[in-house]
């Protein structure tokens, strides 16, 4: 499209030397130093999720109880509903934990997650805009941290890895940062 002059007319020698330079520039750091194998999250993240699902279940249960009372039905059904929801929440938490996998590959971050909808994502380093670590109040008491990776994509904020120890999180942040610098894409926006 807009990419100006194509250099097919260049002499072979010139192209060769440029190619070598490009190659040298690209291989400053070996990406394999930064990659990881497939890792799962810290088990403590289950407590974090369980807190969340339980709170949601209780809120839904309370609303249901009031609704039942308004319709002159036995409000105890609301209690049963809450208990069922809490249990379902626990099942979801365990499954969610078992499914979650992340891997720092040599050219992309790979994520696998989701109980009801199973999603596998590849985030190329070239596309990474910036990398954050964040810690919510519950995460802080549990000693956990979340790594959030931003891309310019419309689903940019979707890419986050929860349930990391703070050390893991900052280690991952360093790795991803290095790899992203290494990839040095033009932003192509």
């Amino acid at each position, binding site marked *: 499209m807009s*990419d100006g002059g194509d250099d097919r007319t260049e002499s072979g020698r010139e192209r060769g030397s440029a190619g070598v330079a490009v190659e040298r520039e690209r291989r400053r750091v070996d990406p394999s130093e930064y990659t990881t194998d497939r890792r799962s999250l810290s088990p403590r993240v289950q407590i974090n999720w369980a807190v969340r699902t339980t709170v949601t279940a209780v809120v839904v249960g309370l609303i249901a109880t009031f609704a039942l009372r308004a319709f002159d039905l036995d409000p105890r059904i609301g209690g049963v509903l809450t208990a069922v929801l809490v249990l379902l929440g626990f099942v979801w938490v365990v499954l969610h934990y078992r499914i979650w996998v992340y891997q720092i590959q040599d050219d992309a971050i790979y994520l696998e997650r989701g109980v009801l909808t199973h999603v596998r994502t590849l985030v190329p380093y070239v596309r990474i805009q910036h990398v954050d670590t964040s810690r919510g109040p519950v995460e802080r008491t549990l000693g956990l941290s979340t790594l959030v990776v931003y891309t310019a994509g419309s689903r940019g904020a979707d890419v986050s890895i929860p349930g990391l120890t703070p050390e893991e999180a900052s280690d991952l942040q360093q790795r991803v940062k290095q790899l992203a610098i290494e990839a040095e894409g033009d932003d192509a926006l």
Partner: protein
Amino acid sequence: MNLDPRSVPYRIFDNGFRIVAATVFWGFASSGDGMDVRSLLLFFVAVLGIAIGWQIAYVRRYEYRVTADTFDIRSGVISRREREIPFERIQNVDIAQNVVQRALGIAEVRLETAGGNATEATLRYVSRREASRLQELISDRKRSDASPEGSREETGDVLFELDQRELGILGVTSANFRLLGLILVGLSFVGSPVAAREISPRVGLFLLLGPAFAAVGLVILWIASGVQAVFRYYGFRLTRHGEELRYERGLLQQYTGTIPLSKIQTLMIRENVLARAAGYGSLVIETAGYSPGQGGSDVESAVPIAERDRVLELARSIENVGDIPFARPPRRARVRYVARYTIVVGVITAILGAIHLWTDELPYWYLGSGLWLLVPIAAHLKWAHLGYYVDEDYVVTRSGFWTRRTTVVPIYRVQTVLDSQTVFQRRRDLGTLVVDTATSGGFWGGDAVALDVDVETARTLRERIHDRFQEAVRERQDRLFRERERESEHGRESPVNG
């Protein structure tokens, strides 16, 4: 430079309703001890005075300046704000003019960058000539950054011009059928028996009243959306100025916008049922974080309507995607839609039954299940319009019956690639492939989505697109690097991001 002085009266006029509202409010607030016309008038004059003073101050304190490589704005009456926007980051320069503004000869200029959804800067208002000058100037500056040779074409090649016939077709085909269909179903089901009894309990003929209402509603909505489309796209023209597309349109609200070719993320071809039947379609061009002329959730077309071949040809002149032999999802996907729509029909019938139980209306509620006859057709149509195609340079996906959307994503514009599987898809070994791009997203988004493909295919495609993307990035980097080297040999400045 300053804003045009004529924008003061317009801005006051624009805020007029607020002044009136404040007066009315004050009038009500003080009405306890009797309405005093004189004090009300005094209040009105005071508020008007403040408004005039404020607007004059705003316009006088608003300064903009064009420097060598930035566009600077200093604004604010009480708290000052200074903003510098690098030319190379400006994606679109839009000019909008409504009827009043046209009478005054002023225009609004909007500068858009890739960051966020908000407009980076809005000049309210400058003279029409100044607006065009800024548009020209900014695209000039951008061009001189991108290619030093800078081919200066003042007029630009006309790529597309909407003629009267096409405008007519646009009016006829620009109905929102999803909405219309919903209204039709709703009115004819719920409306008819109730309305029939309200008017005459004996005459069975009135049972047809509901569908009749629906038909009338349908026609009115159709005409309204048609008229709106005609007003909106009247006099549409798409031209190419160097590395930029420029379009103008509008009967009452006139609009001029630019689309930088180098910033295009995806192309989308949209054809709704009617347009498709007539062999027409529209082309939408999405740039990063912003699609041109986007006001709210509306996506504006780069080509509002043209014959399908013409649309494809235009799309190919922008992104050279060759023939697109679409692959369809496996047949078991169609079975899935039959199951899904059966559930929908079941739910509708159940709701009708429940209404019958509670209100005694709708004695023939079980006829709702007759809708099931449509299910196989609907499932087939949905399936038949799905498709995907992946080659070395492009990912193309297609979906939708009411409005078929074909999305073309150049591989080097890919942001992330993902495949997903819902519980229901897992039962049939199906999966969805999503190719995310840096478009504004939104409800229809610019993402290429291949729905319900075989799960193994989805996975291999994800890997393939990712690998191909990495290759494309490397090729691009090599080329940029070589270009830079060549530039430095010639002792020139390095080019910025072609």
